[in-house]
């Protein structure tokens, strides 16, 4: 079973490294959205510090959502996905491997670039650490929940806009506690730990249930 996981993971990462622009577009989308906000709301450092946590998380939500379409689409188009549904190993493992690869390529870059955002929005040093940690816990949840939506809208016309309608309301808890953690770290004496624990709990629940639900959705969509 672990062998299956490793094989699918290695395959998806290899495919992505052959098409590097796909990875970079999500990252640059994230950067552009974040750079647009100061132009729209004003560049006073006080304002930026207040809206920073929310903006980072909304941008992360949108970036991970836009990248979702590619999660299954190319495999579906060339028929690989149908073969994957036929393998004797549990489909949940295959799905989990694909989502992991997807997160490594679209979620992890957001985590790594976070300190740069912190500089743009004049966030203090400790806050940047919390932001990276919160994104590290939160972005996999986004990928895992989003995978369900991606599987449900597989091969539909206008799937991209539809997926946002399905998935964005489900992202709300991560948004609230993710940006809550970053905001709390800027206040004196507020405990950040509770936010991170809750994000961690979301991650564990999503890891357990999401691949299973995604597998069920794939079986419905490809039949």
């Amino acid at each position, binding site marked *: 079973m672990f062998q299956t996981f490793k094989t699918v993971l290695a395959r998806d990462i290899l495919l992505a490294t052959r098409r590097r622009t796909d990875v970079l577009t999500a990252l640059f989308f994230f950067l552009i959205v974040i750079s647009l906000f100061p132009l729209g709301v004003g560049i006073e450092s006080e304002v930026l510090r207040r809206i920073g946590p929310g903006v980072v998380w909304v941008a992360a939500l949108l970036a991970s959502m836009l990248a979702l379409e590619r999660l299954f689409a190319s495999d579906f188009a060339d028929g690989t996905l149908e073969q994957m549904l036929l393998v004797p190993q549990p489909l949940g493992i295959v799905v989990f491997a694909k989502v992991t690869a997807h997160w490594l390529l679209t979620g992890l870059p957001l985590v790594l670039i976070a300190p740069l955002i912190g500089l743009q929005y004049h966030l203090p040093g400790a806050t940047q650490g919390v932001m990276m940690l919160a994104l590290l816990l939160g972005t996999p949840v986004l990928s895992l929940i989003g995978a*369900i939506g991606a599987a*449900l*809208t597989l091969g*539909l*016309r*206008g*799937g991209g806009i*539809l997926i946002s*309608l*399905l998935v*964005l*309301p*489900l992202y*709300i*808890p991560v948004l*609230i*506690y993710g940006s*809550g953690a970053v905001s*709390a770290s800027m206040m004196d004496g*507020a*405990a950040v730990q*509770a*936010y991170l*624990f*809750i994000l961690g709990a*979301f991650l564990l629940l999503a890891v357990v*249930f999401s691949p299973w*639900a995604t597998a*069920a*959705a794939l079986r*419905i*969509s490809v*039949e």
Partner: protein
Amino acid sequence: MAINWFKYASPATFYPLAGRMIPWFAWLAIILTLFGLYWGFFETPSILTDQKQYYRIIFVHVPAAWMSMWLYVVLAGWAIIGLVFNTRLSYMMAAAVAPTGAMFTFLSLWTGAFWGKTSWGTWWDWDPRMTSELILLFLYVGYMALHSAIDDTRRADRASALLAVVGVVLVPVIFWSINCPDPNQCAALHQQSSFKGVESNILLAMLVLSIAFWMYSFAVAFMRVRNIILERERNTQWVRELPEVCE
């Protein structure tokens, strides 16, 4: 006594049954609505000043909010039954309930906005309950959008049913996170919601109108499910033999 639970799981047997039940639910809805509104407007004690009469929105607002949440549970329940037993009629019921649920969600938001304008002086506030209701509207819209985006009815039914199940699992988490954005203060933030403080006549009108809205939901969902049945089964023999179709 053995009851054949699946007898009415077939569209062919359920269609006439629903047709016979619609008048009952419709009349109950009309009578109870009239009674509830009358009681709410004329039989409640006038303990409040004239400026505070806007509170009577409560007789529509609260039942609508209750129904909006209950109908989502009903929708998800039919979705689960459909996924488990693979009965076509369950999916049709789920699809028939969704627009009514979305309508009640919108109604409770709309009446809530009127209430907010008169009592708080604002149309909208990011109060946890209002936000939860707004998110519920998004979930209904997502369900209906997915259902209508897929041409193949079998896939549309099953995919949107799965979405409804995922939604109903996440709804408590979403509502809880909206109610308690700061996990360090969760224990302190407990919304009081109890019938004890409500005057008994007001409570009576509210409950009667809730039942009225429920009966209305039955009637409308049955009408809609009959339409869905006719649309999907239009190529079958029994539909062609229906008196209303023959003519």
